[in-house]
């Protein structure tokens, strides 16, 4: 007998995403028949606002596109401008940028871990991981003066040099976090409840993954080894030694395993960065921010964020202000077209769980 279909509105507030987003579900019993993503709760028209601000004035804006991991935005915008203008960035600044990107990846994974466990009803994990993430936030505070939004990377390099003794602090924090990983394994990754919920759920079709625009851990969770840091190394990733973990299966579990292994890689990258970071300048000063005419041109740059390929398409018409900045967040695909596809057939109780595993961040969708 065909069960009666009902419509369910999930969100805009719910644990599946960092931010506000609603999924309109058609369900039969507790099985999703159709899912439709609804966004618009966070639209601030940043891209449009940038067209009314000078290039440097745009930096405090872009970081707000992503709360858990704002730094790829700053780095992308900086690199896009630098590419259009042909500006050199001091080597030290590049190392500092990589350090920040990896720290923010770790912080984002910590938050993801909390969310992923939380959506499975395992509430101790978020308590831990949010607490541990705070140590990274403390590092950011000391380095950049800001805890969540850093406004620290900008065109030409970074705004300030490392404070005294900062490198040691980072290393100590890395040692601590590394020592915590086995504990997270026991609490979370080995947890029977999590494994039961995660395995075989939210499967992405490996054959379709590339064409569908799946990126980041979800892609690597399909056993496909692509990572912007390797495919198109930026900053100094080509001088660092790390592996790109993959996991077969395409389900929530594989994505979790990829992230878990990447945390170790990030810790290792940060150690290498601190070891190799050269002395010297950290900022190649741009002209007066009120009077900076960036030459005509366009650039598409991308980074590997915690959620995958994060891209910026920036266009300058030779004026003081950007002609266009168009942000490509991984959630744009993961949270709309992909989500709508793979939610079909899922259990209602798995919806938030699956969303979290994709790393859906609504402000990336609507900016």
């Amino acid at each position: 007998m065909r069960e009666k279909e009902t419509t369910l509105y999930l969100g805009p507030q719910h644990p599946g995403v960092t931010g506000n987003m609603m999924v309109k579900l058609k369900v039969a019993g507790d099985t999703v028949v159709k899912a439709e993503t609804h966004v618009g709760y966070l639209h601030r028209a940043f891209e449009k606002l940038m067209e009314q601000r000078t290039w440097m004035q745009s930096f405090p804006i872009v970081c707000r596109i992503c709360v858990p991991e704002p730094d790829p935005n700053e780095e992308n915008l900086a690199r896009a401008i630098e590419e259009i203008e042909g500006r050199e960035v001091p080597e030290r600044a590049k190392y500092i940028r990589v350090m920040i990107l990896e720290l923010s990846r770790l912080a984002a994974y910590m938050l993801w871990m909390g969310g992923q466990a939380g959506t499975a009803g395992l509430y101790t994990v978020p308590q831990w991981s949010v607490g541990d993430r705070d140590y990274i936030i403390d590092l950011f505070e000391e380095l950049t003066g800001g805890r969540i939004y850093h406004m620290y990377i900008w065109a030409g390099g970074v705004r300030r040099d490392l404070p005294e003794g900062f490198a040691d602090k980072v290393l100590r924090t890395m040692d601590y976090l590394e020592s915590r990983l086995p504990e997270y394994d026991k609490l979370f990754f080995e947890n029977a409840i999590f494994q039961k919920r995660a395995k075989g759920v939210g499967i992405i079709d490996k054959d379709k993954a590339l064409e569908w625009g799946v990126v980041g851990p979800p892609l690597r969770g399909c056993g496909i080894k692509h990572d912007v840091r390797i495919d198109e190394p930026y900053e100094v990733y080509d001088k660092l030694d790390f592996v790109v973990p993959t996991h077969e299966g395409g389900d929530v579990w594989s994505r979790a395993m990829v992230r878990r292994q990447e945390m170790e890689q990030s810790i290792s990258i940060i150690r290498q960065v601190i070891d190799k970071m050269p002395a010297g300048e950290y900022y190649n000063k741009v002209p007066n921010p009120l009077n900076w005419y960036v030459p005509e041109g366009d650039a598409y740059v991308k980074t590997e964020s915690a959620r995958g390929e994060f891209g910026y398409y920036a266009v300058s018409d030779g004026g003081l202000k950007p002609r266009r900045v168009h942000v490509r967040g991984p959630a744009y695909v993961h949270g709309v077209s992909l989500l709508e596809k793979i939610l079909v057939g899922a259990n209602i109780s798995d919806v938030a769980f699956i969303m979290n595993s994709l790393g859906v961040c609504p402000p990336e969708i609507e900016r």
Partner: protein
Amino acid sequence: MKTQNINIEKEIATEIQNTFHTAEVNIKRNKRIEVKLRNDLIPPFLSYAKNYLTFNHLAHFSCVDWIEQNEFELVYIIYSYEKGVIVLAKTRIDREKAEFVTTRHLWYQAETYERELHEMFGINFKGNDRLNEFILEDWEGIPPYRRDFDTVKYATDNFYTRPGREDAKDVRENVTKINKEEIPEFAKEYSVRSLK
């Protein structure tokens, strides 16, 4: 910039040029090729790039408003994982009659991009039957990402400002007052303060 090895880019560029004679192909740097095309050639080009040249990742789809020329520039940013190269396929369409064809049949997620550009720029993508409300709600005015949409005016029309800041002065104006200086009309737009 360092001298870069761009052999693969050259290969791809030649290949494209040989297939699409009217295309303007330009290697921007390593891993970046720009292809400017007549707009009716975009669908065949994208399908060719995807199916023959392995550009199977639609990384981004953007629109730039060149209001001065009364044109929209559509930019398809496609990537070949195999070749490690990005192609920026660009074309211009009429801004008044903002219409184009969908590429949803090539990349299923193009639908979302087209929904966004439909909403923000008012471009109609023929063949996409899901150009419904996406980010905005009950929007009536001109599509807000068009250059002629005035955000400041929108904000002042729709929101009130908290009182208490009316005593703000403009520095340049204040100095002119001290000076008894008269800035001629034609020079006023050159006051940097007009940035605001």
